[in-house]
């Protein structure tokens, strides 16, 4: 993987203003993108004939408590056709913890976004059924946040 990589090139061409950063670590490519543009980017990488990231491996959240934007939603994409992986990250500020849902692109995202909501309290706009998934409906707080104590409240 390098800067000549087709995913890097295509995304940079298509979304010059949305790609905040591209980084490489241990042969993995990570795109940092604006959260407002996540849905068009998801649609593009999914349907573009050259990229065809048709498989959403994973979607999760990371809480960087001490910095702002505090959260990051991380999308692990895989293309079965090209046997290639890519990671897209969208920073979420603590004063507006909402991002567009990508359920309409990959149905996998349904439960994964629910889990993010359950564990981090991130809202997903356009999600068909956003409610807690692992914890009970009346649970207070979001356990995987860094300011949630290990042994409960």
């Amino acid at each position, binding site marked *: 993987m390098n800067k000549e990589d087709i995913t890097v090139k295509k995304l940079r061409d298509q979304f010059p203003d949305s790609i905040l950063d591209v980084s490489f670590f241990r042969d993995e490519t990570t795109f940092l993108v604006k959260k407002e543009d996540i849905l068009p980017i998801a649609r593009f990488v999914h349907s573009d004939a050259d990229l065809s990231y048709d498989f959403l491996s994973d979607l999760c959240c*990371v809480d960087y408590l001490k910095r702002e934007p505090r959260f990051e939603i991380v999308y692990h994409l895989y293309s079965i056709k090209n046997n290639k992986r890519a990671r897209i990250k969208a920073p979420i500020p603590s004063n507006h913890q909402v991002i567009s849902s990508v359920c309409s692109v990959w149905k996998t995202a349904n*439960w994964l976004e629910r889990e993010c909501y359950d564990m981090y309290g991130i809202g997903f706009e356009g999600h068909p059924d956003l409610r807690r998934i*692992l*914890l009970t409906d009346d649970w207070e707080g979001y356990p995987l946040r860094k300011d*949630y104590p290990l042994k409960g409240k």
Partner: protein
Amino acid sequence: MTRTETLMINMGPQHPSTHGVLRLVLELDGEVVVKVTPHIGYLHRGVEKLAENKTYHQCITLVDRLDYLAGMSNNLAYVLAVEKLLDMEVPKRAQYIRVIMAELQRIASHLIWLGTHGHDIGAMTPLFYALRERDEILFLFEMVCGARLTPSYLRIGGLAFDLPDGFEAKAMEFVRTFPSRVAEYETLLTKNRIWIQRTKGVGILSREDAINLGASGPVIRGSDVNWDIRKSTPYSGYQNFDFIIPTGKNGDCYDRYLVRMEEMRQSAEIVKQALETLPKGEINAHEPKVVLPPKEDVYTNMASLIHHFKIVSEGFTPPAGEVYTSIESPKGELGFYIVSDGTNKPYRLRIRPPSFINLEALSTMVEGRLIADVIAVIGSIDIVLGEVDR
């Protein structure tokens, strides 16, 4: 005046055919399932949260308990992720032993699937045979590391112990006889008319749906997608072995059954090849900051004792960064996403659980079908709630 309305019934969490504590709320129109709403989380133990408060070595015992029918595979996925973060290469002997363990574990996991899936839909006999062979595998694990279910045998940088005397002969004997055992199971099921009626054309998952729903492992391969991480991104030396990836055509329960049966044969074949070509040499990487010193040295050598103490109490500090690694576990793509901030504990350890995501496909497979099919479909997805709920 007649009145028709749908009927809501509750299946689980205490129901033998939901394979653990899965609860389904079924909306029925007569015997037809209109809507299925799974409720999960009964076995949630907060593994991801716990992992953030443990050193990298300590997390190994946590991952054992995800898919508790495939402890070795969980170990493998986790240590590979940490080794990628550390940019570490493990010796070839350790790689081969890991493959042997992972493949034996795949057979053991598939055997439980076969037994319980059959049992759920009326075939009592296979369970007894399946458990008999699974026990042989668990005895092999016990020989290697003393544990049967939660081995914690793999270590970051290698293995806890080398193979004991007599293991290779016993394992070889097992994989030599095992294909004939699979043939025995098949005589019970493959052409059994009741089995075919209960599984053929049931729980169909189309190719497009399987991909879009993120299904992996035998579930996606049953839907005619030839994708296996052992082939597409070989890890731990899988490129050295000769094996095929079985796929189905129709994406129904029967095809998933056939895929897993063939996978068991292929796994036995891989173990055989690995045993035949098992390299000699070290089982741990030369990384004194990460790998524990040999036990004899700890007892006799001051420096090793200090060293051991340091690694156990403080652990090691990988570079800051993030990695994602996935393996083909018996259930599908088992991935670990580790975010390191350069301290001795993972800042974030995310588990990509194959059972969880495969279970998401349940409603697509059963809605519009009969209620009896729900049980066949759950069995054919092969979920483990420990991994679904984490």
